[in-house]
C-alpha cells in the first residue's frame, strides 16, 4: 500500500486497540464516538484530498527513499518548493475543514528527526539516522498518521527536569535493557492523538548533562502497551451529543487534544532516535518548533472560513453595503493574508541541511507564529462585531423545530427577505463555533499556545535577529565611524 483512502484510514483506526478515557469512562469505540468522530473526519480529509486530481499536486509528493507517490504528510522536504507546498497544503485543509486536521505535527517531527539524527551520527558515530530512515520508509509505506509529541507536563516551571520532586513530570528513561529502554512520563495537549497510528516522542526543552536521562526521542505504535489517553474537553463539546444539524456549528469536522500517559512503556532500540545525547535536544526542539510554527498556515484557511461566514452573516442581516462593515471585512482579509505572507516567506527562505532535508527559515517561522498568536483573535472580534449579539443569544435548533416556538423564531429572527431564518441561524452557529465553541480551541487558544506560547517565539526572534548588521547600517548612514 502507498496511499490510503479516507475509508481505508478509518478502517485502519478500527484495528487499533487504544486505551482512551473520556468523562471518566473507557471509550470502547473511539472511531464512532460522537465527540471524537468529527476530529477523525478532519484527518480523513488529508487522505481523501490526496486522491483528488484537483488537490493531489500539493497533497502528494515523491518519496526520496522509494521514488513512489506518497501523501505529503509523510514526506521529507527535498526542496524550497516542498516547503512552500506544505504551507499551501495547510491553508487548503484549514479551509476545507474549518478546524485543526491534526496531521502536521507528525510530519514536522519526521522532518526534524531527519536532520537531527543525521547530525548526532556525524558527531557520535551512532546509527540513529539509519534507524530513522527505516522507520520513515515504514511510515510512508503504510501512509500512517503520526502524532508528534513534545510537550511534557513540566511540573514546577522554575526547576529543570532532574530537580523536579516528581521525576515523571518530564518523559524519562527508567530502565535500560539489552533489547530496548523503558520510559515513563506523559505528553500533554496532544492534538489528534487518538486518530494516530504512531506516536513520536521528543524532549520538550534544551537539556543539560544532568538531564541526560530526559534527552530521549523514540517512536511507538499508538496502542503500545502502557499508553493511556485521557481526552481533553472543549467548549460546547457536548452539543455533538444532541443530534441535529445546526447547534454544533461545523457539522462535519473538529479537533481534539489528549493527555497521553506512558506508564513504564517498552521501546525497542530500533525505535530510539536519541538516547541521552542531551546536547542535541535544543536543536531538535528548535527545528521541530520552527517547522511546526510554519504549520500554522492552517489558521489562514480557517480564517478564510470565518471571513466567508462573517460576509455571509452581513449579507443575511442586510448590512453588507454599510461602509464600516465593508471596512471590517477588508481588515479581516488584511490580517489573514498577512499570516499567509509569513508562512510562505519562511518556506521560500528555507535552506538545505547536511542530511539533505530542507528546513524553513527559523526566524521567519517564529515571526509567522507570533502573528498567529494575535491576528486570529482580532479576526474573531471583527467577525463577532459583524455577526451581532444573536450569535450568543440564539435559541436551540429544537426550538426552531418545536410546534410551539418555531413560528416565533421564524418570524422574529428573519432578516433579509430572501434568506430563510434557518440559514441565518446556521451561519451564526458557525461563527459561534469558530470564535467561542469547539473550534475556538484550535483557532484561538491553539493559535496562542500551540507550537509554543508567544514568549517562546520572542526568545527565538531575539536569538535570530542580526542586531550588529542593523547597527552597522544605521551608523554608516549618519556618519559614525568606529
Amino acid at each position, binding site marked *: 500500500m502507498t496511499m490510503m483512502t479516507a475509508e481505508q484510514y478509518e478502517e485502519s483506526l478500527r484495528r487499533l486497540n487504544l486505551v482512551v478515557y473520556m468523562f471518566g469512562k473507557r471509550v470502547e469505540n473511539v472511531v464512532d464516538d460522537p465527540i471524537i468522530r468529527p476530529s477523525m473526519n478532519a484527518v480523513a480529509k488529508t487522505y481523501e484530498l490526496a486522491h483528488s*486530481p*484537483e*488537490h493531489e*499536486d*500539493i*497533497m502528494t509528493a515523491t518519496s526520496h527513499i522509494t521514488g513512489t507517490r506518497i501523501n505529503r504528510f509523510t514526506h521529507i522536504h527535498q526542496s524550497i518548493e516542498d516547503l512552500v507546498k506544505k504551507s*499551501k497544503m495547510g491553508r*487548503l485543509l484549514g479551509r476545507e475543514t474549518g478546524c485543526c486536521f491534526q496531521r502536521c505535527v507528525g510530519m514536522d517531527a519526521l522532518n526534524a528527526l531527519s536532520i537531527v539524527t543525521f547530525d548526532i551520527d556525524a558527531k557520535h558515530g551512532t546509527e540513529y539516522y539509519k534507524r530513522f530512515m527505516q522507520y520513515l520508509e515504514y511510515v510512508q509505506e503504510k501512509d500512517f498518521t503520526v502524532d508528534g509529541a513534545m510537550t511534557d507536563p513540566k511540573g514546577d516551571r522554575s526547576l529543570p527536569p532532574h530537580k523536579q520532586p516528581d521525576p515523571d513530570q518530564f518523559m524519562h528513561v527508567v530502565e535500560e535493557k539489552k533489547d530496548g529502554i523503558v520510559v515513563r512520563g506523559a505528553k500533554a495537549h496532544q492534538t489528534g492523538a487518538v486518530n494516530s497510528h504512531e506516536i513520536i516522542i521528543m524532549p520538550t526543552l534544551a537539556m543539560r548533562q544532568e538531564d541526560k536521562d530526559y534527552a530521549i526521542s523514540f517512536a511507538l505504535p499508538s496502542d503500545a502497551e502502557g499508553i493511556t489517553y485521557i481526552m481533553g474537553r472543549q467548549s460546547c463539546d457536548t452539543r455533538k451529543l444532541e443530534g441535529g444539524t445546526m447547534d454544533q456549528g461545523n457539522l462535519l469536522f473538529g479537533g481534539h487534544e489528549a493527555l497521553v500517559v506512558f506508564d513504564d512503556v517498552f521501546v525497542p532500540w530500533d525505535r530510539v532516535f536519541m538516547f541521552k545525547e542531551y546536547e542535541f535536544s535544543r536543536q531538535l526542539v528548535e527545528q521541530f518548533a520552527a517547522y511546526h510554527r510554519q504549520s500554522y498556515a492552517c489558521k489562514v484557511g480557517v480564517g*478564510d472560513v470565518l471571513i466567508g461566514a462573517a460576509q455571509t452573516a452581513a449579507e443575511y442581516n442586510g448590512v453588507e453595503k454599510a461602509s464600516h462593515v465593508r471596512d471590517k471585512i477588508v481588515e479581516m482579509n488584511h490580517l489573514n493574508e498577512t499570516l499567509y505572507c509569513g508562512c510562505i516567506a519562511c518556506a521560500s527562505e528555507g535552506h538545505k541541511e547536511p542530511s539533505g532535508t530542507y528546513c524553513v527559515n527559523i526566524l521567519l517561522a517564529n515571526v509567522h507564529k507570533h502573528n498567529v498568536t494575535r491576528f486570529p483573535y482580532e479576526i474573531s472580534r471583527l467577525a463577532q462585531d459583524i455577526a451581532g449579539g444573536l450569535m450568543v443569544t440564539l435559541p436551540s435548533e429544537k426550538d426552531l423545530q418545536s410546534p410551539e416556538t418555531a413560528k416565533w423564531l421564524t418570524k422574529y429572527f428573519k432578516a433579509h427577505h430572501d434568506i430563510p431564518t434557518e440559514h441565518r441561524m446556521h451561519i451564526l452557529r458557525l461563527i459561534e463555533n469558530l470564535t467561542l465553541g469547539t473550534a475556538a480551541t484550535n483557532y484561538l487558544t491553539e493559535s496562542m499556545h500551540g507550537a509554543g506560547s508567544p514568549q517562546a517565539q520572542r526568545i527565538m526572534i531575539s536569538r535570530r535577529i542580526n542586531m550588529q548588521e542593523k547597527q552597522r547600517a544605521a551608523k554608516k548612514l549618519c556618519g559614525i565611524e568606529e
Partner: protein
Amino acid sequence: MGEGIRVGLKYCGGCNPEYDRVALARHIEESLQGKVAFVKPEREGVRLILAVEGCSTACADLNAFQGMEIRVIYNIDGGKRFIKEIRAQVESFADHGK
C-alpha cells in the same frame, strides 16, 4: 466520431483558487465535445497537457511532462482562449484535409 485529441488534465493543488477550476475544466470539455477528451495526464497517447491553475502563480508541478506540448490557464478568460484555439486547430486540420 472519435474521442478527439487526448488532453492530459493537470490541476494545481488548489490552495486558494481565484475561480472554480473544476467547473472551468468541465465547461471546456463540454464546449469541445468530440474534439478533445480529458484524460489523466500520465495516460498513453496524450497529445497535449492542459494545466488548470487556480491563480497566476501557476505552481502545478509540470516536470513530469517535459518535452510535451503544455497549455497553462489560470483564469476563465484563459479557458475561453483555449476553447477558441482548439476549435481553430481542428477546423484548420479539417480544411487541410479537404
